[in-house]
């Protein structure tokens, strides 16, 4: 590549960088600007002239944003644990064990994929309510705790293990559990981390479902609570900016820490056309 082409590429990359990340930085900057700083002038300065964390305490005074964050975390932990556990076990059984009904179960799981979640959301709410979980965090977490798509992803990962490895374990007298733990798990770590990351992001970011399930403001998750912040209390963009950053930063940290696994998982065929 000629130096000129290289420079051109970096220039374009930086342009896309500004477009994709710029709005987040702008919001971060707004969240750090004090009351004395005019954010409404025609040319608001990008960097806060006198950075302050006051908006982060102020958002906590207006809505219980830290409680909401804890609520979101509780939901996310249940969903992640449920998927890591349920999708792994089911994926292993579907890929590696032979039993009556395996085809039917697989077909039904596949069939649910043609249903966008929004289609069944009302009946899901009716179901969750009749189970007694309306307006609870468990109710928010429950339907997504074993996601059908994740079962299929784990099934595909278990299927990719060479059958010789599995066969020799069978010959050695290993039962299903031993095969799952000794042969299966070490070979599906990549997919398991992809499932985990997506389960966490999905649960933390979800809006429509918790909006339908939750009524009591005490139980709000962050996304629902933030919406409330924008609507009811304040017209101060600095405070709203601080609230959005509280919802955004944890997910960025999770993603930054785990992105190696994520991109590797994608490259190894999680999404391929």
């Amino acid at each position, binding site marked *: 590549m000629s130096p000129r082409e290289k420079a051109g590429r970096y220039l374009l990359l930086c342009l896309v960088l500004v477009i994709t990340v710029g709005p987040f930085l702008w919001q971060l900057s707004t969240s750090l600007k004090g009351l004395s700083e005019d954010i409404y002038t025609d040319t608001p300065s990008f960097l806060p002239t006198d950075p302050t964390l006051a908006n982060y305490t102020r958002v906590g005074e207006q809505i219980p944003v830290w409680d909401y964050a804890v609520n979101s975390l509780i939901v996310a932990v249940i969903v992640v644990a449920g998927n890591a556990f349920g999708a792994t076990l089911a994926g292993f059984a579907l890929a590696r*064990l032979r039993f009556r009904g395996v085809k039917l179960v697989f077909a039904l799981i596949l069939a649910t994929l043609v249903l966008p979640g929004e289609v069944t959301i009302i009946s899901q709410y009716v179901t969750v309510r009749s189970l007694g979980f309306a307006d609870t965090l468990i109710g928010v977490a429950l339907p997504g705790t074993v996601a059908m798509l994740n079962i299929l992803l784990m099934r595909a990962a278990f299927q990719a293990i060479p059958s010789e490895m599995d066969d020799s374990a069978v010959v050695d007298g290993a039962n299903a559990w031993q095969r799952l733990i000794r042969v299966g798990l070490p070979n599906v770590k990549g997919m398991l981390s992809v499932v985990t990351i997506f389960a966490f992001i999905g649960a933390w970011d979800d809006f429509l479902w918790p909006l339908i399930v939750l009524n009591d403001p005490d139980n709000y998750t962050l996304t629902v609570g933030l919406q409330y912040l924008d609507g009811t209390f304040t017209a101060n963009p600095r405070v709203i900016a601080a609230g959005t950053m509280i919802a955004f930063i944890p997910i960025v940290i999770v993603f930054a820490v785990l992105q190696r696994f994520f991109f590797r998982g994608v490259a190894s065929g999680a999404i391929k056309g």
Partner: protein
Amino acid sequence: MRRQRWFTPWLLIAPAVVWLLVFNLWPSINTVVLAFTDAKPLGGGQFTGLANAERMLDDEQLSYALINCIVYLLVCLPLLTLLPLLIAVLAEKNLPGITFFRTAFYTPVIASAVVVALIWNWLLDDRGAINGIAQQLSLLQKPLPFLTDRWLLLLSAISLTVWKGLGYYMIIYLSALGNVRRELHEAAAIDGAGAVRRFVSVTIPGVRNTMLLVTVLITVSAMRIFSELYVLAGPTGGPGGRDMSMVMLIQLYSRGFTGNLGYASALSVLLFLITIGPMLLLLRFNRRTAES
């Protein structure tokens, strides 16, 4: 060799089957059943036959929602099919620091739609950054009402969606570009084809299947649009409810004491009928991928 006990597989698959039955199959059946009733959020409801379907025919908000979804789709489709491909081509070469760029481009995807919409709210506000800069550069005399005018509001939601989708579709294209044969590019280059020419006659044919997958994904997601419009336009769907989306409407009818679960379910069935075609196509893609 020890025989596998018959119940072991069922033990492993039990949680999945319970979830399948309770949270997937039963709600699907119940949605269809409720669609023929006038059930209320607090329970009860009578069988009303096709009354809900008739009601749809002269539901003004529903026609707004459908028009919005179609406009949404028509504008998003070309932009989100092409822009992420261009970005993927740009981010494909293994330059130093390229992982940083790829990861950064993906950030909007992992952010919650609510967070993104709140950020854009502030960017698009009458006194926000975009109006501010445009006025500063004398491109505008007075601020454009991005968040209160019907079509501008829709346009705002569309640009937000495109912006948030860039990284997502870029990743899909990146894995497809890996399969485009390098020799073809080199051969074309030797034949004197410039970058544009090679993009059109080598890259695009090479990722044609992926482009088709992307258009299906975009079509389905355009029909499911909710959070962006809900946050930008407000819970009632903007001025006069004219920025309604189908999912917003479903959500609206299912809440509160005056809600109508029956009608919301009928709308859900309509949404299903609209998305079933693209969804089946998507499923075929997934299956082919899972098999290969």
